[in-house]
């Protein structure tokens, strides 16, 4: 399980989990669950576009993710947040369906980008993993106060001179870029599950922001480690274990709180 050829997988997945646990805390706090799901999903047609027009996959993913952020920021002014997110998501996925069909030879990669191939991670995946594992927590912690304040009390934040619209766009852009980097490593589904379950569980267990943030990262790490080990032992996809384990952790946290 810890054979040398799997070490890269453990390192990269742990880094992604740190970033996801950290981002997830803000996602839950800011009620941006749908956006957190939509941005990775919206990014993945970028890979299809890249293979169709022949540019680098990383540019395609990042371009689509940022296009999603721009569309979201624009549409949110004229539509309720959840409907706006849905419309942006389907717009990019519709394009994805077209690119996918036109490029033809791409079908097998859909599954990889959606569900990931964690045990197939190689040394080439480490630089982007380090970039998000260190970059996402750094940026989010630097903006900790405005991010929390504008989520908890927009009026107070506005009074203190925080530009809520810009903070929101910045937060979504961080999510989008992190998703774009993480997609080829772990897949869209895994990134989202790691952001939702552990962070929601942490917030159920404690209301203190810093404790919840730490707990969220810790639970995300536990989830990904357990999922990797189970995936290795059973040969089933890691995405399945991450999805069910994060839901299980959330349920367990709610059970603990009720007692």
């Amino acid at each position, binding site marked *: 399980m810890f054979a040398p050829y799997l070490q890269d997988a453990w390192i990269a997945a742990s880094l992604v989990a740190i970033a996801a646990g950290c981002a997830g805390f803000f996602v839950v706090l800011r009620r941006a669950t749908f956006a957190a799901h939509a941005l990775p999903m919206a990014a993945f047609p970028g890979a299809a576009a890249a293979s169709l027009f022949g540019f680098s996959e990383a540019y395609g993913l990042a371009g689509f993710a940022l296009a999603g952020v721009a569309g979201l920021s624009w549409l949110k002014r004229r539509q309720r947040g959840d*409907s706006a997110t849905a419309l942006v998501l*389907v*717009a990019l996925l519709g394009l994805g*369906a077209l690119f996918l069909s036109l490029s033809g030879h791409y*079908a097998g990669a859909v599954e990889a980008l959606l569900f990931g191939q964690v045990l197939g991670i190689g040394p080439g995946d480490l630089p982007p993993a380090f970039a998000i594992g260190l970059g996402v927590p750094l940026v989010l912690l630097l903006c900790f106060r405005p991010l929390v304040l504008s989520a908890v009390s927009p009026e107070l934040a506005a009074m203190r001179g925080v530009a809520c619209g810009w903070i929101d766009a910045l937060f979504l852009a961080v999510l989008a870029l992190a998703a774009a980097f993480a997609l080829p490593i772990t897949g869209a589904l895994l990134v989202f599950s790691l952001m*939702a*379950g552990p962070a929601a569980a942490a917030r159920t267990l404690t209301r203190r922001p810093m404790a919840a943030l730490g707990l969220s990262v810790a639970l995300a790490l536990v989830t990904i480690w357990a999922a990797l080990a189970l995936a290795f032992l059973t040969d089933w996809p890691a995405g399945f274990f991450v*999805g069910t384990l994060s839901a299980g952790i959330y349920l367990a946290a709610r059970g603990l709180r009720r007692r």
Partner: protein
Amino acid sequence: MFPAGFFDSAPVQTALLVGGGAAIVSGVTGVFTVLRGQAFAGHALADVSSAGGALAFLLGVSPMLGFLGLAVLGALGVEALSPRRAGERDLAAGIVLGAGMGLTALFLYLAVTVKGTSGAAVAVMFGSMFAIPPSVARLAALAGAVALGLVALVYRPLLLASVDAELAAVRGVRPRLIGLLYRLLLALAVTLFAMTVGAILSTALLIGPAATALRLARSPGVAMALAAGLGLVACWGGILLAYDSYNWMPGHVWPVSFFIVALVLGIYLLAGLLPRKAA
């Protein structure tokens, strides 16, 4: 105007029928969904139902059963997890979505290893409009009729609860029961679409026409009729364009879902150019 053989082709007839029925049901359900701010729940149920599609593919049973079964299970799951506070509803949908997508990953993996088939992921996610068997079409028509009957039965309390929950409670509407009925309705609508345009893009027909109609129409009833009509135009237009696209690049058909989404969004953006309704 119509390409030769368009109406004679049996797959096209089935696609027009199922797609049209789905557009009507989704238009009606979508208005409630946009009013209640449940777009994420709708999208999550579509994704979760795709796990059922994958499971049905694996077991070799009717895809309709798989999609519908998992959508209903997902609806019950979201309902059970939903906290009383409205603001964190999206979280429940997210948790169910994560678990459901995990199941999809597992079923697709098993489909590949046990049955030795690939390409199931694309069919489940992006739909197979021109490959709907007639038996499924009959089941789909039944599900659509049940959904519309359900709306007719609880129209007033559901609308009241969607627009003003407190007033509804005062009038004696039971919010949990109505919420559950609404989620079942959503599950039915989502199933119809997940099978036709695919799990992911069903969101387009649920939210797009309804959001457009709510900008234009003055009353919810009119909005529902308008949403159903717009959905129908987008759906049938998409099928026609996809059929016609065979002639654009010889031998290559563009995906139906692309055309439907493009039409839905085009209509939405055009409607944005019109002056807003006097509220």
